[in-house]
């Protein structure tokens, strides 16, 4: 499995070389180098996939063992990587999407003062993400998990001169850390019960866990996943994360990193399969997140905020899939989402780029004629995410909703309503930005915005093709369920299959399609000629249900007050004060003794003689006994 090593090695090599020589390579040399590193990784990934294709059965799980990372007591942690059908799917789309976005970034980041640094971080991110998906044990997964978190921190606060960007990066890292507590505790609980942290041992033996333990482990890891994949109640960081450069939003905060939580849950499916209550909780939280975020997305005015809420909402769908046991549907949605959401971001980035970093949709409009490629790719992405057949979203979201229906009709109802909202808010975005009247004169000072350079439009076209056709991966007809057939052995008995009647099998996709078209129609009616409708943009939704405000008021301010109080009052006066009190006592006693110290040698001698007398007397008396 040397080729798997190459997959991970190329981005690492790219990172190290850029770290050493990136500044000398400059703009755009560093960008090209980073892109080539990731593209090579993609090629190696394809090679790995071909190797796996030639194997059968359990041989499709290959482990690349490098060296022992650390060891103590009964705990042994290796640096070893795992190529199996699940991780190869992840590897392929991560490296593929990354390569495309790297290419796009060369154009987008052009003339930035820290051009080469951007690619250093980006390559490090790809490396961490690959470690995350290929790691063969929990701590190594955690390494990737934290590594992508750190890269996300650096990239969000890439323009650190802006206080908002700096704060956003920090916030993302800290909220992810809250989730990480869950990851750590989950790992501990796994080790405590199964005496190993390696997937090769944990996953086959998961059935030994008692159901209570399994529930706890599942919930703890879900806490981690909720942090990384921006689920309720930890999703607020993803909105602020939009402070980062747009390619970062596309790569990290839409296509890859945020889906790591979903991947983790899929990876741990054997444990999840034992935890029914936890699964239901995950499904409910997922669908509520999807709904809440979609509602919020309808009222945003910042183009990236709309897309960010949309991402949260889509991640909610994936969690719904995980919770209902439809792991393959969730992975399928993850892959297609990576394509169309990356595309939406990159298209938005293209718009933002041409409007001199303007992000408010109020100051856009009528851009379709000026930026045809951007507009058309965005429309393809919109149709995909809305679930219009035959675009990819129709199949992937449809399969998640089908399984949700099989599990519980209520989940399905909320999911379908959310689908309606999705089609609506994305429609709103497209109409307001690309049609209607032009409102960007202020921003561009008269001259017309123009289409982005080719280096940015080529990635858009590539992703548009992928977004339109990714449905082919897993068509709902028995012979064409490629992804399902590929992944099913990995999940085995953990995979839940719901048997739907033949009428349901026709009615459910039909409903999806109708709902998607309904949402598009609504958006067309309401936003074709308007850029602002107060009644449809209530403050509560605009502010994201005030959740972030609530956190800020309670935890952030309360915590700061507590910290300052501890620093200014508790430590100097109470803790140190107690010691100071003892010191004062000694000084008082010393003051008594000071009077004896007259400084006259003869007084001292007299005292000394008295001491000799007493000492001798004691010796004599004790000896006489």
């Amino acid at each position: 499995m040397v080729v798997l090593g190459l997959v991970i090695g190329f981005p690492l090599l790219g990172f190290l070389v850029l770290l050493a020589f990136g500044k000398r390579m400059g703009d755009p040399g560093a960008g090209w180098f980073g892109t080539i590193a990731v593209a090579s990784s993609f090629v190696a990934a394809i090679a790995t996939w071909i190797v796996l294709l030639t194997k059968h059965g359990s041989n499709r799980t290959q482990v690349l063992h490098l060296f022992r990372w650390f060891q103590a007591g009964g705990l042994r942690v290796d640096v070893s990587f795992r190529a199996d059908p699940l991780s190869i799917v992840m590897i392929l789309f991560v490296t593929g999407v990354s390569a495309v976005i790297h290419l796009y970034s060369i154009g987008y980041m052009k003339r930035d003062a820290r051009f080469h640094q951007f690619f250093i971080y980006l390559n490090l991110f790809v490396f961490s993400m690959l470690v995350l998906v290929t790691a063969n044990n929990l701590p190594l997964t955690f390494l990737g998990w934290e590594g992508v978190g750190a890269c996300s921190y650096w990239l969000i606060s890439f323009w650190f001169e802006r206080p908002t960007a700096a704060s956003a990066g920090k916030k993302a890292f800290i909220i992810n850390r809250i989730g990480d507590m869950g990851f750590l505790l989950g790992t501990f609980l796994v080790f405590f019960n199964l005496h190993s942290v390696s997937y090769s041992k944990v996953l086959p033996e998961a059935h030994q866990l008692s159901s209570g333990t399994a529930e706890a482990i599942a919930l703890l890891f879900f806490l981690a996943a909720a942090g990384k994949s921006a689920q309720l109640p930890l999703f607020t960081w993803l909105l602020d994360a939009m402070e980062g450069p747009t390619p970062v939003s596309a790569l990290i905060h839409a296509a890859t990193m945020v889906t790591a939580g979903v991947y983790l849950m899929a990876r741990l499916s054997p444990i999840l399969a034992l935890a029914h209550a936890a699964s239901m909780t995950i499904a409910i939280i997922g669908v509520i997140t999807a709904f809440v975020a979609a509602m919020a997305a309808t009222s945003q005015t910042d183009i990236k905020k709309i897309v960010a809420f949309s991402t949260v909402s889509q991640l909610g769908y994936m969690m719904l899939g995980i919770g209902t046991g439809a792991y393959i549907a969730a992975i399928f949605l993850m892959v297609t989402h990576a394509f169309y959401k990356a595309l939406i971001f990159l298209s938005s980035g293209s718009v933002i780029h041409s409007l001199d970093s303007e992000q408010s949709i109020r100051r856009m409009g009528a851009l379709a004629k000026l930026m045809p490629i951007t507009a058309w790719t965005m429309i393809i992405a919109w149709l995909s995410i809305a679930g219009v057949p035959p675009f990819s979203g129709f199949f992937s979201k449809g399969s998640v909703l089908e399984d949700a229906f099989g599990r519980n009709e209520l989940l399905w109802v909320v999911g379908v309503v959310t689908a309606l909202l999705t089609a609506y808010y994305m429609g709103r975005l497209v109409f307001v930005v690309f049609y209607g009247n032009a409102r960007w004169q202020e921003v561009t000072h008269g001259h017309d915005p123009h289409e982005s350079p080719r280096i940015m439009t080529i990635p858009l076209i590539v992703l548009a093709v992928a977004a339109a056709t990714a449905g082919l991966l897993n068509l709902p007809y028995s012979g064409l369920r490629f992804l399902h057939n590929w992944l099913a052995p990995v999940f085995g008995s953990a995979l839940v299959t719901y048997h739907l009647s033949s009428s349901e099998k026709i009615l459910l996709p039909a409903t999806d399609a109708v709902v998607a078209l309904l949402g598009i129609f609504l958006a067309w009616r309401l936003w074709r000629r308007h850029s602002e409708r107060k009644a449809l943009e209530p403050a509560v939704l605009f502010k994201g249900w005030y959740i972030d405000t609530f956190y800020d008021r309670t935890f952030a301010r309360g915590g700061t007050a507590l910290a300052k109080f501890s620093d200014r009052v508790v430590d100097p006066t109470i803790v140190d004060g107690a010691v100071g009190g003892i010191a004062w006592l000694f000084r008082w006693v010393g003051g008594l003794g000071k009077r004896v110290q007259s400084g006259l040698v003869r007084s001292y001698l007299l005292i000394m003689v008295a001491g000799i007398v007493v000492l001798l007397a004691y010796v004599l008396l004790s000896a006489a006994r």
Partner: protein
Amino acid sequence: MTIPGSWYLVVAALLFGLGTFGVLTRRNVIVMFMSVELMLNAVNLTFVTYARMLNDVGGQIAVFFVLVVAAAEVVVGLGIIVAIFRHRATVTVDDISSLKG
């Protein structure tokens, strides 16, 4: 028959007492210093006496070292006295109280 050791010890004790009294009552630092030498001699006498009583050379060795140390002590002590005198023009102990706490 020789004189019993306890007699020497009594003499040593008396000499020690005289020395102590001198240190405690005289004001002239140099005389105080001499009184200290008396006390040392008293102790030396005790050592030698015990050495004889126990038939052990250790006592005499100790005296030997005490003599050396005393010599060194006198040298340094007198050096200090000279220094103090140059600084303060007095050798009366009660005038010197820089040890006051």
